């Protein structure tokens, strides 16, 4: 550890030690807007164990299922808009719902984005013996006859999985409405369909493919991350470096109500930033199958607004929303 890093940590922990411990966060709570056991539960667990050292009291996890997060965002826009203690888990799926109006009147401007706890990235997958040996093969075939390729993924039209396909086609001005797309119930069924030959291309996520790398059955043509990611995916090119402007980051993080005090918001941001610097946080991220993507406060907010705007563009382009 170099001196600069050390001193930042020291400074951060000193500043934290004074105001935050006595300050606005006296009963920290993480809302997982889903049933126990899902991705939001996992997001909250990362905060719970990752922020142990930064919080005076352990973070309580509360479940608030309903409408893939709609129930929670409703509550935080009606009664708990200024709850300094509560953070709510979100994912890119929640952002997509905001972008396409699935949360009714509530949009990305109705909450304050706080911090991320990690990410996953899209991946373009084919069987090992596929006629497509590279992303270029696939895209060339798509430009020639889009209808000849059967694409499958784990979600419906307008879902995150569908967005990945739409983005990829969009990089060559192809319309997602013209493809042949099959919606399965989650990644497991999609991979089965890919191996069994029902579909030719699967728009998956890097995280779920860990168990298939090196098995000699699936080939990842490209990952949809901004930069290359670490082992075991280090050899796989990104779609961007192959010349296709298709990046899909599955972000996991937290938002707060829009009327929380700046004092509390900043205390949370500092707590997360302090945690990002620790080894333990990185270990917890890895254990939960997340790739590092640590952003908090204004930086995160800006990045999210940009993302949501892009999602809205795709959805509008495909005619999903007006």
């Amino acid at each position, binding site marked *: 550890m170099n001196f600069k890093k050390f001193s930042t940590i020291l400074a951060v922990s000193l500043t934290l030690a004074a105001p935050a411990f006595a300050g606005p966060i006296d009963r920290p709570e993480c809302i997982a807007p889903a049933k*126990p056991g899902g991705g939001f539960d996992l997001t909250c667990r990362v905060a719970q164990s990752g922020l142990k050292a930064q919080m005076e009291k352990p973070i309580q996890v509360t479940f608030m299922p309903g409408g893939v997060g709609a129930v929670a965002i409703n509550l935080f826009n009606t009664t708990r808009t200024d709850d300094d203690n509560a953070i709510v888990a979100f994912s890119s799926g929640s952002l997509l719902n905001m972008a396409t109006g699935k949360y009714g009147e509530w949009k990305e401007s109705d909450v304050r984005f706080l911090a991320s706890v990690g990410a996953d990235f899209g991946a373009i997958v084919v069987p090992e013996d596929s006629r497509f040996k590279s992303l270029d093969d696939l895209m060339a075939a798509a430009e020639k006859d889009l209808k000849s390729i059967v694409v499958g993924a784990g979600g419906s*039209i307008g879902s995150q999985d569908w967005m990945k396909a739409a983005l990829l086609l969009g990089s060559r001005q192809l319309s997602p409405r013209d*493809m042949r*797309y*099959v919606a399965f119930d989650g990644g497991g069924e999609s991979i089965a369909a890919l191996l069994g030959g029902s579909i030719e291309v699967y728009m998956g996520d890097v995280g779920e493919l860990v168990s298939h790398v090196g098995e000699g059955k699936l080939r990842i043509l490209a990952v949809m991350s901004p930069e290359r990611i670490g082992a075991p995916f280090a050899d796989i090119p990104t779609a961007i470096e192959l010349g296709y402007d298709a990046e899909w980051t599955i972000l996991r993080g937290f938002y707060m109500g829009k009327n929380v005090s700046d004092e509390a918001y900043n205390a949370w941001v500092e707590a997360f930033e302090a945690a990002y610097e620790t080894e333990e946080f990185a270990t917890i991220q890895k254990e939960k199958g997340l790739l590092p993507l640590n952003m908090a406060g204004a930086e995160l907010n800006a990045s999210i607004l940009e993302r949501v705007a892009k999602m809205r563009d795709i959805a509008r382009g*495909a005619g*999903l929303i007006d």
Partner: protein
Amino acid sequence: MIDRIFAGAVLLVALAYVVLAFTVIGAPFQYDPLGPESWPRIIGSLAVLCCAALIIRPEIEDFSASKQTLLRLAILVGMLCAYAFLFKPLGFIISTTMFSFALSKFLGARVKPAGLFAVSAGVGGYVLCKMILDLNLPSGILKQFL
């Protein structure tokens, strides 16, 4: 008669279901020829036909339950709703104790055993399910003490 009333009520629901399937439901675009509306149209229409058949040829004439029984069942449903309403705000222990006491009393238990049973259901259930099995149950107003 009772069959007719019931079938009539279901018919109204099924009609509303079909009407929605033929008017409101639809996707901006779809990859399969059926879309989200075809299946509800088929099953809804069949349900309408079934209800009509039941109205024409009903089977059961009378409801084999006295007014008093029905009244008591309504009270039961009321108790269940109260239990559901209080479950989260009051927490598992208190709401369960209250509900168990009320229902066992309602079914003829004496005060003392009913109270004993109710407290052990509330506290025992919480200890077993929340503390030992780590299930997610609300702590409610006792949050500070647990």
